[in-house]
């Protein structure tokens, strides 16, 4: 439990609905803005990208780095968060 942040736990606890992309673990204000500029304004759109990449975490992290310049930790947190959400709700 201690390895996951509060943001992660909050996100994974319930269906994401219309939550903004900033609620994803690892995605702060800066990254959130960059993603929104690219068109990924809601968390579910990022989820869509994750699913299109067949839930491959490595590829998703690569993509996240490409798209908004996330570092290793941020991309790892985001990918882990989405994966757990998928395990729970998908």
């Amino acid at each position, binding site marked *: 439990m201690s390895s996951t942040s509060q943001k992660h736990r909050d996100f994974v606890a319930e269906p994401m609905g219309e939550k903004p992309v900033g609620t994803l673990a690892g995605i702060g204000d800066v990254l959130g803005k960059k993603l929104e500029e690219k068109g990924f304004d809601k968390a579910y759109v990022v989820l869509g*990208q994750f*699913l*299109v*990449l*067949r839930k*491959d975490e*490595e*590829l998703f992290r*690569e*993509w996240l780095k*490409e*798209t908004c310049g996330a570092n290793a930790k941020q991309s790892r947190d985001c990918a882990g968060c989405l994966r757990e959400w998928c395990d729970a709700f998908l």
Partner: protein
Amino acid sequence: MSPAFALPKMVARGGCGGPLPRWRLHFPTGRALPVGPGVSAAAMAELTDAELRKELIALGYRPGPITATTRKVYVKKLGCLRAEVAAARRRGRGAPSSPARTPARPQQASPSRQRSGFTSPVGAARDSEEEDEEDEEDEEGGQPPASRWGTFVLLLIFLGILTVKMIGSGWLDRREDNFNLLPVDCDKRTDDFCQAKQKDVIMNVLHELYKYLSVQAGNFECGNPENLKSKCIWVSEAKDHVVNITGSSPQKFEAALHWILNSNKDLGIWLKGRDLSEPVTKVEEVFCLESAHPQMGLGCRFRRAVVTAIMNLFLFFWSLITLWGILIFLRYRWRKMEEEEQAMYEMVKKIIAVVQDHYKEWERNLERYPYVGIFHVRDSLIPPQSRKKMKRVWERAVDFLASNESRIQTESHRVAGEDMLVWRWTQPSYVSDSEH
């Protein structure tokens, strides 16, 4: 960020973001496309989506949809995979690889191999596999001899015990016979030498007689091929046979019989007189001889043992079942009796109620007589279809009332022109009833 710069970084990280199946390194794709560091990123970027997809699949990776957003990532992935294949082939060329062995066991050793990063040559793995197989074979070959020896020894022991048991008793008896030192009648010639010789002869005769009798008894018990009438052999027959075999005179035979009569030990030969119940005291009384230890074959003994065991079991179970049956029967009887008693008491209660009601109605001038016929009561209490069934209960109830109920009196009156037994309620109505 151009993929060209990114490529070496990814290779250095190792793993490249996806597991490559082992066999791919030994069977690289037979495509015409050159593989190696010479392939430029631009060439890869020119591939159409379909071609990119095909390339990825050929290298064993299954991509998702190639869209605008995912294309760049997949191109990078393709480059990474190609670099891995090239590196593996270069390393693979160093040590000879036999494709025949490794495909047989890719799954078992794959985790360790991936970890080692293909440093351990394939040959070493192959050697260990061969050793494993040989070890298994040796182990398998070693075990049967040990277990075979063990079973053999056990079998020998078992057979030994069996033979001892089979031959046992007769053999022991014969030994005992030989060590006996009872005095024997001598032929009035010399003392010591004569005695010893006589004893030997008689022992011999007895031995032959014993053998003969036991064989005959055994034959009689097991199938009776000679159609003997009984186990008891005529004296004359036994005498003839023994005299023929030993070549001694009939007097020796009679001396032997005398000896048997005089000895206290159990020699395994029974002498029977004409009258079977009386014991034989003189040699002349002996009518027939019987062996106490019939000699039977193993199969015969086994059969008899099995039959005896089964018979015993049968008898045991039969007696058990009989006892159980008796128990159940007794319980049933007891229960039936209880039920009858209950029925009788019920009937008695009903009768008392009817008679009392009748009396009360007479007091209120609704009835003509204070008494009521017994048969009328019966017919009003028991419906016609159960009158026969309840006959016993009814009669018991009537007897009970006659003997135990003081409030009801049995009288004989003329009712409707007919003399019949009636019941009359005699208790005055202001005394309370024990029932209420």
